[in-house]
């Protein structure tokens, strides 16, 4: 790879469309890893919606460019945690992805550090994120930064048609 010319900047709403190929590629990796997390047909459109209003208030997307081409991004959200376990504001990393051709250049860490500066400015008490099952590289990356596993998020599709059929048989 030729010399990198890396720049990280906070995305404007109009910049998000340039992330569509990376976003779809990321979800393809998710599905390859766990076999259940699929991007819906309008998933990217939904993801973009509302960003303009929330930008820099409760949500950020930082894009990593190489020579003006997006090669990675990170999305952070401020969430309100659970009072049951005494959480206040949480900085939640919703997505982090770097084009595989650009990995091992420290770009994920740079994206994370940029986002973390924003999280800290929002006075969060915890950072949270979800790691796709089977993404052992991601798990190692976040563990090295200091994250600890808390919950395992589980998913089970429900087929309402077959459930309705089952009830009919029971009647």
């Amino acid at each position, binding site marked *: 790879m030729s010399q990198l010319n890396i720049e990280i900047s906070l995305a404007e709403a109009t910049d998000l469309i340039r992330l569509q190929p990376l976003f779809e590629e990321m979800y393809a990796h998710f599905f390859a890893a766990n076999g259940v997390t699929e991007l819906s047909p309008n998933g990217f459109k939904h993801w973009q919606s509302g960003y303009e209003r929330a930008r820099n*208030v409760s*949500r950020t997307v930082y894009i990593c460019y190489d020579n003006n081409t997006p090669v990675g991004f990170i999305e952070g*959200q*401020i*969430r*309100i945690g659970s009072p049951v376990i*005494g959480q*206040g*504001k949480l900085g939640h990393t919703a997505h982090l992805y770097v084009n595989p051709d650009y990995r091992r250049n420290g770009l994920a860490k740079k994206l994370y550090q940029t986002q973390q500066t924003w999280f800290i400015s929002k006075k969060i008490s915890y950072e949270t994120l979800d790691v796709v099952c089977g993404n052992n590289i991601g798990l190692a990356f976040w563990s090295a930064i200091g994250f600890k596993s808390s919950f395992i998020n589980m998913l089970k599709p429900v087929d309402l048609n077959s459930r309705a059929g089952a009830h009919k048989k029971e009647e």
Partner: protein
Amino acid sequence: MSATISETVLSHIATYFSVSADQVTPATVASDIEGWDSMANAEIILGLEDALACELDPDDLFELENVGRLIEVFEKRSVG
């Protein structure tokens, strides 16, 4: 004349959800307004913190059972 905290909170919420001003009162709760989910809740609180140049304490975040309580905590923090 600048808006009071109460006016700012009520108008911020009405604008956020694109509803008329009379649909948001101190008695309003999240379930009264379509789309007021946890993400919207965080966005509203952070937007109000910016608008009012005032930060809520973590404990405040768990006492927000209705819009009136949200107004009260911002009034408390803005003078504290």
